[in-house]
């Protein structure tokens, strides 16, 4: 009867050993207790005795490292046939677990709730590295009372804000803090628990803040675009959507984006994904906050088609009827605050997109033409880019094209 010889555990903690040399050959008779092979463990090389008597029918492993428990030989009766049972002792390498699913799904949801920042003036003052020094107690009181720490000055060591400073701020009106608890006796602060949308917005904004960004600005002469709009309106079909300057801008951006794919991209971990088609998201003010529905294939759609898509999305957005698919797949975002009279602003990135365009109102402004000052309708555009993904030159080239297209739409053909 054949017996499998397995590599024994010869010491505490021993997991494997190296067979150096067999002292018996296949076919030789072996007595129990006779040295059978030489084994190198971490500590020492030693002879290992046979546990069975018989004929060494097969040496399964000639030399090399073997895990404890693996069959290395078979001893049995003369003439027996032998099949060595594989590595029944060897540990199976665990299958690599599937890579954790990327956070794309979350990002898609979050994209629905992206928000831009307001004009710079209102930003809270920050210390050198952006952190505010405040004691844990001070932070808690500030949190509970809705007081912005950033606006306070601290009287603790090294300017640390301590509880007293926050208490003081709570009872005196402060000009620096943008969101201060109401002054006066008996005035209770209104506490609003953040909705999940707002929380998502807050979280995504914080994420966006991690990106190193740069901004480029141009002013475009809108004369031709406005003229184009008039032409489109004149040719408009009955009952169809009136195209706006924004729709034209969306189309022109679409064209520019496919010509400058570096800006039609996502930056995800260590990857840059450039897309062949421009899916432009438009920031829309809905009831629960800003959302960004997406119009796919802007480079191929006509302005009329874009207008129709835009109107449909806005209506559904305002009515809370947007689908997830309406919010997914955006490669670029345009945010337009012109209708609110904002002339210029800088938008916050909408990750994982690498760029976002902030558009202000079209105003009659003096410009210089052929050495003379004339009045033209002009619009200011600010492009924010993720510098990890995009450099200044390509960004500038893109923006220059957008301006060029706005000033001479035919160039976009």
């Amino acid at each position: 009867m054949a017996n499998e010889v397995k590599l024994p555990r010869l010491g505490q903690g021993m997991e494997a050993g190296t067979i150096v040399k067999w002292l018996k050959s296949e076919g030789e008779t072996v007595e129990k207790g006779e040295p059978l092979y030489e084994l190198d463990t971490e500590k020492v090389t030693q002879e290992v005795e046979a546990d069975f008597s018989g004929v060494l029918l097969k040496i399964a492993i000639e030399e090399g490292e073997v895990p404890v428990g693996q069959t290395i030989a078979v001893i049995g009766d003369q003439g027996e046939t032998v099949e060595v049972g594989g590595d029944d002792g060897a540990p199976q390498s665990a299958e690599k677990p599937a890579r954790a699913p990327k956070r794309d799904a979350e990002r898609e949801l979050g994209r629905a709730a992206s928000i831009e920042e307001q004009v710079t003036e209102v930003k809270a003052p920050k210390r050198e590295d952006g952190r505010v020094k405040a004691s844990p107690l001070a932070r808690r009181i500030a949190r509970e009372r809705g007081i912005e720490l950033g606006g306070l000055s601290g009287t603790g060591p090294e300017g640390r804000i301590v509880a007293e400073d926050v208490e003081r701020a709570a009872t005196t009106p402060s000009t620096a803090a943008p969101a201060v608890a109401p002054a006066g006796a008996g005035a209770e602060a209104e506490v609003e628990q953040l909705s999940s949308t707002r929380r998502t917005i807050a979280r995504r904004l914080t994420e966006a803040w991690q990106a190193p960004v740069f901004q480029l600005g141009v002013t475009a002469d809108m004369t031709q675009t406005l003229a184009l709009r008039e032409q489109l309106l004149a040719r408009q079909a009955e009952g169809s959507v009136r195209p706006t300057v924004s729709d034209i801008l969306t189309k022109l951006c679409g064209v520019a984006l496919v010509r400058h794919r570096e800006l039609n991209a996502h930056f995800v971990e260590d990857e840059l994904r450039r897309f062949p088609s421009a899916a432009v998201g438009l920031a829309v003010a809905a009831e629960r906050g800003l959302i960004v529905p997406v119009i796919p294939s802007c480079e191929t759609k006509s302005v009329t088609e874009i207008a129709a898509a835009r109107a449909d999305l806005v209506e559904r957005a305002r009515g809370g009827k947007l689908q997830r698919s309406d919010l997914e797949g955006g490669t670029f975002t345009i945010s337009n605050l012109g209708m609110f009279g904002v002339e210029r602003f800088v938008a916050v990135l909408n990750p994982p997109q690498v760029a976002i365009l902030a558009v202000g109102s079209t105003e009659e402004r003096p410009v210089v033409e052929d050495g003379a000052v004339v009045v033209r309708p002009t619009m200011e555009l600010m492009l924010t880019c993720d510098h990890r993904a995009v450099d200044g030159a390509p960004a500038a080239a893109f923006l220059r094209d957008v301006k060029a297209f706005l000033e001479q739409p035919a160039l976009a053909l």
Partner: protein
Amino acid sequence: MPELSYREAVRDALSRAMRRDDDVFIIGEDIAEMGGSMGVTMGMLDEFGPERVRNAPISEMAIVGAGIGAAMQGMRPVVEVMYEDFLTLAMEQIVNQAAKHRSMSGGQVKVPLTVRTQGGAGWSPGAQHAQQVEAWFVHVPGLKVVFPSTPTDVRGLLWSAIYDDNPVVFFEHRTLYGIKEDVPEELEPIPIGQARVHREGEDVTVVATGRLVHEAVAAAKDAEEDGVSVEIVDPRTLQPLDEDTIVESVKKTNRCVVAHEAVARMGFGAEVAAVVQEKAFDYLDAPIERVGAKFAPIPFAPVMEEYVVPHAGDVLEAIRRTVARDGA
């Protein structure tokens, strides 16, 4: 109410326990005729005889170990180690044996042993007779560690230590032996694991042990004049630690100073600070301050010893740091 010194309070607890129970006996070096190097067991030989007030040769390992063996047989021995510096000689028996018998046996064995010892600097004894080593023992699962600072506390806690079924390392402090206090006529056992608010206050909690409790009291009086109201919490038992009392106090005052005579770095106070920041993080208006000996073996020359070892002034400075302001 009778007045007892800390020393007399220890003797009183030991004597009452030995009168009550034949199972209680004491072993130590020079504890019989001499009455102990600190005079704690004076007179006890006459009352209890040489079998139960047992002088031992200089064999810390064996006498602590013998205590372990007798305790395992159900007796309640109290072994005195003359200086806490010499606990080092019995570490193996305390840490590897006494602390672990219960666990290793799966609960079959109890070791109701008390190891009494004392230490403290301030009298130029040199580095090997001046240490405070409680940090080593609070770190060993299976041991209890007690460090009382007043006559009432030491009497009530020694009684509880003797009657606790676990090995207790019981620290007394050299400079406290002489302090006197009115104590209750009858011995009132104090539970192990219960802190005491030694002084109430509003602005900062000082968690202090041993001699530093009294230094903290002195510092608190000075701080009062600065308009700072100091609360003093004496844990009394270091393991198990009464975290609740300490945390409640810090939640009230919002500031914390931890003070002990032992070396500050990696000391018992570090654990208290960690617990406080864990459990009262949002209540802290200032970083937790620690007061302890500086990181050096305690030198002989009085001026150097004075510098290394903490005093009331160090506690006061720490208190001031917690309420410090730069501007306004």
